[in-house]
């Protein structure tokens, strides 16, 4: 049933600077499912993440993306977010001069409605509670968004946003990169809490490691801009042993768009 899926990607082709990076992606995520996308460097993983959210540098050549049975390809990024899509960035942007809590308040009121943030003190308590849960120091509420944060602090801040925004589908772009095991555990704790409440997850990663803490229901291999295989969680373990050598794209598949 179509209704069972939170995300349906059909034949998605995406170019950047006239080079086609995604060459016909078919992918689906069931409601409540954790779907891992694994692949070697340069396979198009981050392009997939950015394209889902609609980064202006990525041009959609063809195909469709449905979120909760509704096409979202023509929507602005903020509208996609309002419909329940969330992207945890591999490299979260720094916004000097914009205070974290003020940013969080704007984000939450844009996505969940201004009622959610009307009581400033109540919202502040909620932010501090989630920060404590993720082991983020309270002082970060007053700091500028990601400005001078370490890699691990940025990733925790991404999960903090996820907890406050409670998306339907979280796309996690290499969230584990640069994190030590303790940090990965904290991130996983937050993500799993939302999963229990029904959030679906598309987890994009090069390494199997994070999947020990966020258990995938299905694993797909992305290489050369195409999904080459989809299987159960055992595929991640297998890739850990064998690497991506069986999935090296043929030279010809890296088409240049004319």
């Amino acid at each position: 049933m179509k209704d069972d899926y939170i995300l349906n990607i059909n034949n998605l082709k995406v170019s950047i600077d006239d080079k086609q990076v995604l060459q016909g992606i078919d992918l689906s995520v069931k409601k409540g499912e954790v779907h891992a996308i694994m692949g070697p460097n340069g396979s198009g993983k981050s392009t997939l993440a950015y394209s889902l959210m609609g980064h202006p540098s990525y041009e959609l050549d063809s195909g469709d993306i449905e979120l909760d049975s509704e096409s979202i390809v023509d929507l602005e990024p903020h509208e996609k977010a309002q419909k329940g899509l969330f992207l945890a960035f591999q490299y979260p942007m720094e916004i000097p001069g914009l205070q974290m809590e003020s940013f969080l308040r704007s984000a939450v009121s844009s996505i969940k409605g201004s009622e959610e943030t009307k009581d400033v003190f109540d919202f502040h308590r909620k932010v501090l509670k989630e920060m404590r849960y993720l082991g983020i120091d309270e002082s970060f509420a007053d700091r500028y968004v990601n400005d001078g944060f370490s890699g691990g602090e940025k990733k925790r801040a991404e999960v903090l946003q996820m907890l406050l925004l409670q998306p339907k589908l979280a796309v996690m772009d290499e969230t584990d990169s640069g994190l030590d095991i303790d940090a990965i555990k904290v991130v996983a704790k937050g993500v799993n809490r939302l999963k229990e409440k029904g959030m679906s997850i598309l987890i994009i990663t090069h390494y199997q490691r994070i999947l020990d803490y966020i258990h995938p229901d299905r694993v797909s291999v992305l290489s050369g801009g195409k999904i080459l295989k989809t299987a159960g969680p055992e595929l991640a373990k297998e890739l850990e042993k064998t690497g991506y050598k069986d999935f090296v794209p043929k030279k010809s598949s890296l088409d240049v768009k004319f």
Partner: protein
Amino acid sequence: MSKEDKFSQDFSEFDSYQFGHYDKVKHIASTGKGISRDVVTKISELKNEPGWMTDIRLKAYEVFEKKPMPSWGPDLKEIKFEDFTYFIRSTEKESDQWDDMPKEILETFDKLGIPEAEKKFLAGASAQYESEAVYHKLNEELGREGVVFLTMDQAVKDEPDLVKKYFGSVIPASDNKFSALNTAVWSGGSFIYVPPGVEVSTPLQTYFRINEEEFGQFERTLIIADKGAKVVYNEGCSAPKWAKSSLHAAVVELVALEDSRIDYQTIQNWYKNIYNLVTKRAKAEKNATVTWLDINVGSRITIKYPSVMMMGEGARGEVQSIAFANEEQLQDSGAKMIHGAPNTTSVVTSKSISKGTGRSSYRGLIKVLKGAKNSSCRVECDALLINEESRTDTYPVMDIAEDETQIAHEASVSKVNEDQIFYLQSRGIPEIDAMKMVVNGFLEPMVKKLPLEYSVEFQRLVELELEGSVG
């Protein structure tokens, strides 16, 4: 086409400017178009001035005629001096009652929130409309303490000794073409004298409104803080959305005697048809402090470099300059710091934003005279560009004749980053709001230090300017 029809036509053009309406009011007196020796004499006559002021004017007019237009900086070729009207009187005399002025004028000042601001946070307020003040009032208690707050026109009559002593003492008529013009045809502006040891911590304010097109406003302001005195002064301005340009050429002189402090704060929000060519300079004696907060959002071209001459040991000068250059605007602002005595300190902080074809320039002069030992100066200017075609320039000049000084200059240029906007959008925030957040973030370190009423007003203006900047 009648004047009013032409106006409403210009007015209908999309524009975020809020105070661009025109009042249909009759003139009590006007010198008509153009400038001449006769016009200068006529202005002096209309004001019943003593002969010594008429002489100052006429001498200045000669200087104005001889001085060439500034050859550096923005192109001022479009300015045709014969097109402007140099003096318009709108009410018979200034009053300390808001109700005394014509209804249209009062409505305008109400819209601008001036009477309300006076009640809330001012110790004295003046409202200048065209060439002269239509309202002027000082808190009575300050009057009893000996604080003098007059229009400059009134000060010539009531405080001739102080005016004779200080008028033109900081900025001589011969300083530049526009200071000469101002000295010849000046009208309105404020005169403030704060006696020794008196502190005026609640601001005094003057608001300047231009109503006619092709008009010239030439207010003249002189503030004297006597020994150990303190005063905070605010000014604001606006004008209707005429298609043809007007000229605003003010001269502001500040005299800070020993141990005194003057804080001068400006939000310049002229409509984009105004040439705003202003000379502002302060003289700071021993251990005195002068700060200029200079916010430029409006005007077609602004040329203004608030300056502090630190002539007494231990004097301190500060300029905080914020400029927003929107489409077709040129904000040529900055600061001049003259260290003329030992142990003097100056700080210049400049933030500018250029949007679309807007162009902002920082022009600064740091001069340390021989013997001004242990002086220090720190200049920091940051520019933010919103679009590909936006432009910013920095022209710092340093003239250091003393070895034992500390000078630091830092400058940065950044561009609004597409990825920052995308990041905020991915959190449900629409593009225009994301843009405002990034720009406000750039200004934040400076805005958070502003007086509250200024930071709120300024952020509101910036957000209005940013409307329509995306897509």
